Structure formats: structure tokens, C-alpha cells
């Protein structure tokens, strides 16, 4: 009887240990611990900014532009600032979708930085962009632009 009780207790401890071994603890960035019983699941991250075959991706940017100093009327200032803001929004979309080429150069003379230069460039063809909202305040025009990307637009 005594030995059987010890045996049952040992078996119980062994099965509990095996159960805890199967479970993996995954920590998410928000310090929430996700327990996966089978050990093969990944952290349930919010993948909103990933383009998949089933889900389209909408990118939204806000471009800024200012009116030139020598404008003949407020309407002209608005029109010109809006043009600049649209171009800025296009640039932001191109940067997000295609990426930016960055080139840096530092000139050090007599152990001192004499000139520090960072050049960035982006080139892209942007189609089907939509202006969502335009605001003009104190000479600054802001254009909210968005573009919807789908997997079919990118040839595999």
C-alpha cells in the first residue's frame, strides 16, 4: 500500500513535468505571456502592415508644402502650396513602398569633423494614389494621401 502510494505520487510528478515541458512560453512585446500547448505556435503579433495574398495594404501619408513668398493672391498661394504638398506625399509613398537610398560622407580634418553630408534619394512610379484630405493653415498646406497595394500588382 505504502509503495503503491509512492509510485502513484512519482507518476503524477513525472506526468506534470512532461506537461510543462511541452508548453513553451512566448513573450510578446507588450509583456503578455502567451502559452502554446503544442509548442509550435508563434506569438500572435498584430501584422497589420504586412501585404498578404488575401489582404490588401493601405498606406497613408501626410505631405507638407509651403507657398512661395511672392504670390499674387491667397488662392495662388494655396494652389502652389498644395502642389508642393502633393509632391511631398508622393515622395513619402515612394519611400515607404520602394525604400530610400542613403549615402553618407564625413570629412575629418585635424581630428575634427569639418563637413558631414547625408544624401538620400528615391525614384519610383506611383499609380492610383488618392488625396484624402487637404488642409491649409498659416502658409502650410498638408495633404493626406493614401494608396492601396495588393499582391496582384507585384508580379511574382
Amino acid at each position, binding site marked *: 500500500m505504502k509503495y503503491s502510494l509512492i509510485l502513484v505520487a512519482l507518476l503524477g510528478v513525472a506526468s506534470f513535468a512532461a506537461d510543462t515541458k511541452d508548453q513553451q512560453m512566448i513573450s510578446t512585446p507588450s509583456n503578455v505571456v502567451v502559452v502554446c500547448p503544442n509548442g509550435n505556435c508563434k506569438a500572435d503579433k498584430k501584422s497589420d502592415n504586412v501585404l498578404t495574398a488575401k489582404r490588401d495594404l493601405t498606406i497613408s501619408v501626410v505631405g507638407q508644402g509651403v507657398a512661395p513668398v511672392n504670390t499674387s493672391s491667397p488662392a495662388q498661394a494655396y494652389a502652389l502650396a498644395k502642389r508642393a504638398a502633393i509632391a511631398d506625399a508622393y*515622395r513619402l509613398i515612394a519611400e515607404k513602398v520602394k525604400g530610400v537610398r542613403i549615402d553618407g560622407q564625413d570629412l575629418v580634418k585635424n581630428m575634427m569633423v569639418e563637413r558631414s*553630408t547625408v544624401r538620400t534619394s528615391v*525614384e519610383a512610379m506611383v499609380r492610383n494614389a488618392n488625396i484624402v484630405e487637404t488642409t491649409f493653415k498659416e502658409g502650410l498646406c498638408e495633404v493626406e494621401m493614401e494608396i492601396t497595394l495588393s499582391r496582384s500588382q507585384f508580379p511574382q
Partner: protein
Amino acid sequence: MRSRDGNHSFTLSISTIIFLLFNSSALLFADEYLISYQSSIKDATLYNETLLISKAMQKCQGETIDKNLILKRDKKNDLKKILLANRENFDAFLEKIGLYVEHREETRNSVNHSFTTLTLKTTCFKVDFNDNFVKITPLEQPNR
């Protein structure tokens, strides 16, 4: 005595047919225009904008795509004037067709300068002039 133009009705019918043929061909085949656009922005300020429009001197290659623009027309035949009168709609249309973005930026000793150009390369558009409106449809080049 019969006149020299005895077949008056025959001549009239032939000339009517020729007239109708010419008119129908004018209605069926819309005009083709070449349009290019470029705007340059320096340090977040627009400093140059170019819109070039020319009637095509030879037939354009390519097929029409399903994007088209319908603009109001006030008895004007000048496409540039019509486009400039409906500038907002035309800009939105250009955004649909697509613009080529080129951006350069330089930061030297914490002083930033930027230069951006938006370009629509010379594209052929089929333009239908109707009584009250103009329909503009881009033709997609095969090698584009």
C-alpha cells in the same frame, strides 16, 4: 432637251454618300493628343511646372485603358484651355494614371535641401470632343 447634268439625282446621292462617309469617319475616330507634365519642387516650394500638349501627328500605338476623364466643355476646342479650366479634376486624373517621382535630399552640416520632380512622360491620349463635354482616355504604350 436633256441638260448635261441629266443624272442630277445620281450625282446628289453620290455626293451625299461621300459627305456622310467623311463625317462618320470624323465622328468615329477621335483626336489623339500627346501630353506631358512635370513639376519641380525645391525645399517644399513649387518653383516650376510644365504642361505640354500637342496634337499627335501620326496615329498612336497602344490600347485604351479603362480610366477616363470627362470634362465640361464650353464650346472650346483648345484642349489646354479645357484642362486648365478643370485643373483639379485633371490633377486627380494624373494621380490615377501615375506619376514618376524623383527625390533628392542633402543634409550638409545639419542644413537640409531637397529637390523633388513629378513627371508624366509623354503619353498619348484619345480625346473625344462632344457637344458639352470632352472625354479623355489614355492609351497605354506596349513597351510602358
